[in-house]
């Protein structure tokens, strides 16, 4: 049974709502593991942990630093999501994906794991991570349902798109210094199907989760009073970013649509030249040549559209979802602060057990500071990721477009070369217009 920081700091409290702290703690039974990691207990800048936490033996977060550089060298978990398979039961049909993990981290018993997971499981994982780290930015999952109507859940392209998104989701978590240390994450990667089912049933019950939700709603209604300026700035940015990225998503999808329609017409164009060549003698060769060029350009266009659909469209869509995630994270941060503020006000006004309340308020204040720091750190990290992802996607698109035009250029130049035998003199002579 996992225990929260609250249990450590104030063991008198029993029915606590899980606090929003980074990193769940391991069972204290597994003391051995801690020794391996505790030597690495220095905290980088932008630390989100307060002093009391540093000494708590149960906290696993010590060794998870917020490092600035996350190059391949420091990567010690490699995950692939592949091999979608369809499962049919009496009740339903669903797809599972193979999740293959290779890791050198010692909190894992083995260095390799192969499990099968369905979308529901990913969704559960995301929920758990957000619950435990409410102000960290968790990379979005692909959508549960596709609203577009015509897409079937078991359509090949849809499955492939989803698979790639799930792959990215897990890898982003693996790259995250704090999220990757999550117990839920470890279980997700390593447990067999029945083990996972059992594990899922643990954790705070439905009622306590309900309580959390009620509180959150109450807090959001109350609103936060003294939001730090930087978070307001972030919120404004997120609002704008959300609009821009949605626009880009729409524009790109429109380009794909137009390009596909262009391709359809182009496919009819080439054959017309071939048809014409059937009526001609002198011109037949040349007409067939032109038809051939158009056909090759068709192939290149098809490839280009495919690339756009595979590379740019999914990334933009991901960041549309990211924007929503960010909004949710900001809301949760606000709620934490609102809760603190409410209790603080109560201290001044209500006739209650002041000592107990004071202890609670201190805890909440810590919570707020912790949440803010978590968010601030992750915000920087997210911005860097975002820049990297979008830059890479747009670069790739531009490169592909250059490649596309270069290939078409070669096609037409080859054709022109084959024509420029005798006609070249005549063109030079009569080139007046």
């Amino acid at each position: 049974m996992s225990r929260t920081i609250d249990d450590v700091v104030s063991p008198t409290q029993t029915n606590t709502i899980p606090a929003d702290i980074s990193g769940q703690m391991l069972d204290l039974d597994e003391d051995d593991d801690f020794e391996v990691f505790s030597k690495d207990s220095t905290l980088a800048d932008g630390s989100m942990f307060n002093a009391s936490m540093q000494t708590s033996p149960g906290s696993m977060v010590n060794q998870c630093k917020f490092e600035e550089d996350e190059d391949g060298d420091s990567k010690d978990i490699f995950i692939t999501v592949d091999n979608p398979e369809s499962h049919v039961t009496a009740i339903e049909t669903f797809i599972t994906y193979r999740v293959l993990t290779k890791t050198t981290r010692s909190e894992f018993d083995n260095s390799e794991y192969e499990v099968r997971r369905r979308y529901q499981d990913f969704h559960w994982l995301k929920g758990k991570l957000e619950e435990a780290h409410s102000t960290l930015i968790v990379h979005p999952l692909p959508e549960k349902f596709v609203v577009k109507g015509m897409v079937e859940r078991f359509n090949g392209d849809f499955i492939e798109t989803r698979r790639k998104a799930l792959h990215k989701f897990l890898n982003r978590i693996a790259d995250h210094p704090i999220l990757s240390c999550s117990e839920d994450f470890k279980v997700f990667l390593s447990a067999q199907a029945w083990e996972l089912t059992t594990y899922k049933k643990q954790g705070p019950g439905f009622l306590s989760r309900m309580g959390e939700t009620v509180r959150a709603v109450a807090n959001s209604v109350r609103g936060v009073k003294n939001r730090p300026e930087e978070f307001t700035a972030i919120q404004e940015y997120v609002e704008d970013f959300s609009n821009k990225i949605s626009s880009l998503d729409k524009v790109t999808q429109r380009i794909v649509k137009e390009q596909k329609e262009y391709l359809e017409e182009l496919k009819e164009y080439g054959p017309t030249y071939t048809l014409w060549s059937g009526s001609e003698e002198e011109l037949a060769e040349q007409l067939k040549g032109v038809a051939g060029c158009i056909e090759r350009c068709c192939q290149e266009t098809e490839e280009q559209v495919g690339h756009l659909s595979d590379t740019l469209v999914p990334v933009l869509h991901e960041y549309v979802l990211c924007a929503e995630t960010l909004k949710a994270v900001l809301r949760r941060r606000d709620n934490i602060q609102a809760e603190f503020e409410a209790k603080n006000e109560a201290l001044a006004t209500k006739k209650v057990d002041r000592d107990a309340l004071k202890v609670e308020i201190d805890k909440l204040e810590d919570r707020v500071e912790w949440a803010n720091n978590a968010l601030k750190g992750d915000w920087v990290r997210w911005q860097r990721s975002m820049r990297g992802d979008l830059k890479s996607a747009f670069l790739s698109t531009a490169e592909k477009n250059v490649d596309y035009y270069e290939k078409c250029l070669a096609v037409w130049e080859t054709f022109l070369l084959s024509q420029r035998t005798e006609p070249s003199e005549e063109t030079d002579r009569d080139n007046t217009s």
Partner: protein
Amino acid sequence: MVEIEKGTSLLRKMEISVAEAEKRTGKNTVNMQEIYTVYLIETRPVDALTEGITPDSLWRRYSEFELLRNYLLVTYPFVVVAPLPEKRAEIVWHKLSADNMDPDFVERRRVGLENFLLRVASHPVLCNDNIFYIFLTEVRNHLLIFNLSVFFLQADSRLKAVNAAFRVKNPDGRFTELKHYSDELQTVLSQLLRVRARVADRLYGVYKVHGNYGRVFSEWSAIEKEMGDGLQSAGHHMDAYAASVDDILEEEEHYADQLKEYLFYTDALRAVCRKHELTQFELEMVALDLACKKQQKEELVTGTVRTFSLKGMTSKLFGQETAEQREAKLQVLEQQLEEGEEAVKEKNTESDEFVKTAWVDIERFKDQKDRDLKEALISYAVMQISMCKKGIQVWTNAKECFNKM
């Protein structure tokens, strides 16, 4: 655009161009106000010494060109007469250009009319036509053309009426083949032009949507720090990309016009074939008539009635003819036979002449067509290459900008 035979006598003497287009208002035949376009025909003697001298010029409207062309069609039926540009914009890629008053349409028509005049001026036979010369140079004599043309037009329309009814027994195989070819060419060029217009429409859509990238990148760059510059400049390149399609498609329109000219040429080809059929038909009619008369003479001489005839019937009913009556009839027949022989000889010569001269011009036309269309296809490839090069440039620039993000 047009490979002009600089060798004809007319073009050696003068430069011809359709320099401008203007709008005029006037009263039409039913006394209603109308707006029409007139085109300025300029001619200038080809002479190094006369450089800088203002050319002679006169204004003509599209319908006058039509009259000239009809005149040429009727007067030189063995010639494949160059077509005029479209009266109305029909196969267009963008709905805007369908308006006759649209400046782009007017401009393209101006070029087409100039092309027509140059085609006629470079034709070995047509270039010597006096009416053509008058059309180019004399303002006052346009009424002369009008009257002449009306006359010929009426003659031609009578002939055209006959076309509908007759069937030729022994057409020259080459003309039948030519008619099939012109039908095929018309079908395939129509289809090609239609598909090309649709392709152009779609290409326009693709390029223009990229303009939205320009706008959004620009707005987005305002909220970013490190990415701002890269995004902003990338946005400019997206705008440039979107704008580039206008020039690309305008160039392609020239290519489409070249194809259209040959699409309209198929009418001229068919006209020559029809004229052949007509002469052939007339020859066959005359030959048939001669054969009939020969038959009648034979019957008269031998006294036998081989075929049923009204004369035979009436003579049966009302008695045989006298020897004098028969002699008189024979005389008439002999005369008719002589005339008939003459007519057949004439028609034969006419037909042979026509076939000979027509086929010379058809060969000339075929060579011209092969040359022109070869050039057109090459220029189309050049256009595609230019479009690709522009694309490479824009996206390479955009890539540089994205790199700076």
